[in-house]
């Protein structure tokens, strides 16, 4: 008889627990005299929290190429870059033509810009992006760093705010053309019209005549 007590307690506990679980199902039923519950549906809208950018070329293409050596038949012609150190433009700073529009379509952000190596159509040796100050890209090796050396090239973007003289690097960095608010900061809807100047290499190892490169704009969080 003494030994049966724990079993009785266990069974009783299980029964109580079962009652408790079952009770959960009926506890929500309102008493007969209780008032009816009423509710109201509310909706709320928030501002978008997306960081985004759009880039729109306005019939942009490299043209107005100058420089090179006519005596060696390697001078620039029309939209073709010459050697050594020919220049080609998308837009024209002297005429105030800035064909590329960069718009911050998201929340306020810092707008960064960077470039890539130039790839020849035959898949051979690339041209490496260089900068005059050597920050974020190798330093240009001709004319005391002012001009690209062999298999190097320089890209400068410009706008009505001025020209990025040191050049665009391979690592994303603050685009100084977004200077209206300082620190390359752009609020939602703010845009900038820009052009691009490309300075070609002193000489090219690869003999391809078609090259591709990419300039990328990136909105970046700022913790300042």
């Amino acid at each position: 008889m003494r030994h049966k007590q724990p079993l009785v307690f266990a069974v009783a506990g299980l029964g109580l627990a079962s009652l408790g679980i079952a009770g959960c199902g009926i506890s929500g039923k309102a008493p007969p005299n209780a008032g009816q519950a009423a509710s109201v549906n509310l909706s709320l809208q928030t501002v978008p929290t997306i960081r985004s950018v759009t880039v729109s070329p306005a019939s942009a293409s490299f043209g107005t190429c100058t420089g090179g050596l006519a005596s060696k038949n390697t001078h620039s012609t029309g939209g073709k870059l010459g050697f050594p150190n020919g220049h080609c433009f998308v837009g024209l700073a002297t005429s105030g033509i800035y064909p590329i529009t960069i718009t911050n379509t998201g929340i306020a952000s810092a707008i960064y810009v960077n470039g890539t190596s130039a790839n020849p159509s035959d898949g051979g040796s690339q041209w490496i992006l260089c900068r005059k100050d050597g920050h974020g890209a190798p330093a240009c090796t001709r004319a005391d760093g002012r001009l690209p050396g062999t298999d190097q090239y320089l890209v400068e973007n410009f706008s009505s705010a001025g020209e990025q003289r040191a050049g665009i690097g391979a690592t994303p960095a603050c685009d100084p053309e977004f200077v209206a608010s300082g620190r390359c900061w752009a609020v939602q809807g703010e845009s900038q019209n820009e052009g691009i100047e490309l300075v070609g290499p002193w000489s090219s190892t690869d003999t391809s005549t078609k090259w591709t490169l990419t300039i990328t704009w990136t909105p970046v969080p700022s913790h300042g």
Partner: protein
Amino acid sequence: MHLRLRLSAALGVLLLVAVPVAAQASVGVGVQAGPVQLSGAAHPGGTYALPPVYVVNTGTEPESVAIRIERISPGTGRTVPQAWIHVSGLPSSLGHGQSARIPLNLVVPAGAKPGRYFSDVVVTGSADLTAGSAHLGVAAATDLEFRVVPGAVSHAWFSVPPWVLVAVAVIVALSLALLLMLRSGTSIRVEQATAGAAAGSGGGRAA
């Protein structure tokens, strides 16, 4: 002569109208502004599912997106190595205004140094619009943050299916009940009465 002038003027107006229409094509990409964070701490040797990152095509052209890990924005902590973040489920293409949530997995090597890690998740839109031989690209960045602490990898409960947890709980409860019974000395005896005996005893009561 006048007709030629008028035709030229009309052509000029047509070009002025046509150029802005062509210029409306744009490439764009967006990413969630909120940082991608691991809810708890990571341990060396562990693999963790990061919250999926939201990306959207804000341009007018269909584009595919790529994700890379790069330290761009200012912040403190160790730089997250690209190899630690595994990206899966990238959509082949996103139309104008379309969005997707891209799953990310954090794989921390066994020899990882403890501390706070910080980098950016950089989403690149690849619908490059060609300008001569220059492609104009877009990207958008958001923070990536997590902590690595020393210690063994603790497998999260949420990684086990719920039915397994219920089954384990039932087995443990039954085992405890059985143990309790054995320790208290209680025994359950099952008796089976034969039909004849039952009838006999029943008849006896009737008498």
